[in-house]
């Protein structure tokens, strides 16, 4: 068995597990006992793949970016998850989990969201399946991701503001967990990243693995080889990276590059670069690496990108970091903004701020002209337009000085 897959107890090396109050034990156990049988069943696979193709719009293209390639002196491909229905990779997971929820007979779906992409993807599949949907979102994120909040509401979801702590993703997750505790039997908690208690990290990784599965055959079709030299993906919780890395984890010649948000800088006190700043600990039900003080209190993260603004990483990523299978880099807010403007200008693609972090490390890497690099473009930038407009105004003001 692969040393990068979860073991029978739900661990990736020392990370993972299910650190949950007894109040959640029956729900998590029910999922653990059933998720593999459901996912592996013919009926699930048929419906999942049908919906991914006809509803989501998969396969997403693997686009050779000629201008970006020229600029950085390597063969750069973009895996266009931004072209999925709802605008990001998140929908791969929500399509899968909503089918699992239906199979388990759940009627009420709860979710947490940071940037809003997972909330929109959850609200979308709930509308599709006619299920009640409640999305918890930090008060701060509600303000900075207004278009996605409007989308969720239009899709019929109830958006509940998390007003504790930093009022961002971490706190939305706490609120979702509390709701789950209060409504254990009828509720399915649709987690949006490779985080949370086992089996969530493994389940979400499996549902996102469609990304690397497609990269393999698409790259072979275009280059004759299915393995690139390097895959780059941004990491908050880490679901798009888990999906992009999944089928390459045992191909150790492929460099897996995970990019975290450095915020205002690693040592600025305003950062979300967990692997650099974190220590081993337990957050939201799993043992992983997280940003915490000497007493185990979780440190509020910061990133311009709401989707990366999380104090931990999924246990799979903690394991990739710990075993040095993954290369963990980071990009600041400004570097991500620069990368977003660069991609837009060079290739005519406006990326999500999250994906811009992945793009931002191209300039920090020692690339060679024969190197084949795949950047997972996890989402599109529509939701970040307000941030981009502010940046654009700043740039225009600077140009007029």
């Amino acid at each position: 068995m692969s040393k990068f897959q979860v073991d029978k107890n739900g661990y990736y090396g020392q990370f993972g597990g299910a650190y949950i109050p007894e109040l959640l034990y029956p729900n998590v156990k029910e999922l653990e006992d059933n998720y593999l049988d459901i996912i592996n069943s013919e009926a699930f696979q048929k419906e999942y793949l049908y919906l991914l193709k006809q509803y989501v719009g998969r396969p997403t293209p693997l686009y050779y970016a000629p201008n970006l390639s020229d600029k950085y002196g390597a063969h750069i491909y973009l895996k266009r998850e931004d072209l999925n229905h709802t605008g990001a990779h998140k929908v791969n997971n929500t399509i899968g989990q909503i089918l699992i929820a239906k199979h388990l007979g759940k009627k009420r779906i709860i979710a947490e969201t940071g940037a809003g992409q997972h909330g929109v993807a959850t609200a979308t599949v709930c509308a599709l399946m006619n299920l009640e949907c409640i999305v918890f979102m930090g008060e701060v994120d509600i303000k900075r991701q207004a278009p996605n909040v409007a989308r969720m509401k239009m899709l019929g979801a109830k958006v509940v503001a998390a007003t504790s702590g930093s009022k961002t993703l971490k706190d939305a997750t706490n609120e979702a967990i509390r709701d789950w505790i209060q409504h254990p039997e009828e509720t399915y908690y649709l987690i949006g990243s490779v985080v949370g208690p086992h089996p969530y990290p493994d389940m979400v990784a499996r549902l996102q693995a469609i990304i690397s599965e497609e990269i393999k055959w698409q790259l072979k079709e275009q280059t004759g080889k299915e393995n690139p030299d390097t895959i780059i993906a941004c990491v908050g919780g880490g679901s798009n990276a888990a999906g992009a890395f999944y089928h390459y984890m045992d191909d150790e010649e492929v460099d897996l590059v995970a990019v975290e948000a450095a915020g205002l800088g690693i040592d600025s006190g305003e950062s979300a670069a967990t692997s650099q700043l974190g220590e081993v600990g337990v957050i939201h039900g799993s043992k992983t690496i997280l940003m915490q003080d000497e007493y185990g209190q979780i440190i509020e993260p910061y990133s311009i990108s709401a989707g990366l603004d999380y104090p931990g990483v999924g246990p799979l990523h903690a394991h990739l970091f710990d075993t040095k299978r993954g290369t963990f880099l980071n990009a600041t807010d400004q570097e991500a903004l620069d990368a977003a403007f660069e991609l837009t200008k060079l290739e005519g693609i406006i990326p999500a701020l999250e994906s811009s972090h992945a793009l931002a490390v191209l300039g920090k890497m020692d690339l060679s002209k024969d190197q084949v690099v795949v950047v997972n473009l996890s989402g599109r930038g529509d939701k970040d337009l307000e941030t981009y407009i502010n940046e654009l105004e700043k740039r225009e003001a600077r140009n007029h000085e």
Partner: protein
Amino acid sequence: MSKLNQLFKEKPNRLCSVYFTSGYPKLNDTATVVKNLEAAGVDFLEVGFPYSDPMADGPTIQESSSVALKNGVNLDIIFDQLAAIKEQINIPLVGMGYLNQMLRYGTEKFCEKCISVGIETLILPDMPMIEYETIYKDLFAKYGLTNVFLITPQTSEERIKKIDEMTNAFIYVVASSSITGAKGTISEEQIAYFNRIKSYNLKSTLIAGFGISSKETFNTVCSHVNGAIIGSAFVKHVGTNGVDTIDAFVKNIIN
């Protein structure tokens, strides 16, 4: 025998425990809260270690933890506060926090500190049973610490019996499927649940918590299990009225 087990032997019923958040409402209130609760007739105390992300706590306790952390409380301060009054108190102390606090502080150091200040029992609601069995059971035993597991209306009979076997302190009977402080009455359904648990003839003392907020709920619960823990209602009370009115609050419930 631990102070707690001695207590259970001497007083098997109508046990009243109170949860308080250390360092709340003011950083240096901890000692006064402990002393006042003991003087008011509470049987044992749950010493809350404030945590930034308390998964199983409701809004009242979460908010009190947040205030306590803003007050500057931390585990070292709590241990120092308890050490300073150790000789003045006799009441058994149960520590309640989250696993990450113990892991980060250093498990051995944490156990050592707890015992040294009179905490002989721990409630770490996110500790998996399998980890307790394989990692912490022996370690806790080495320091003379006992561990408390929670059960809920959804916990299976098989699991409850296993918990009973592993328990050397008491079983925390979560009175309803809810976070702390969410409800104010005890329903017929909850009574049926208490009676179901009693029908298993468990060896452990059963203490109910979550939603016990008044004389009425305390009395109802105590007629079905051995005792009850008052949490959110107490935290709300001291947050609003300060630490000088603790005696009246407790007596109003237990007398």
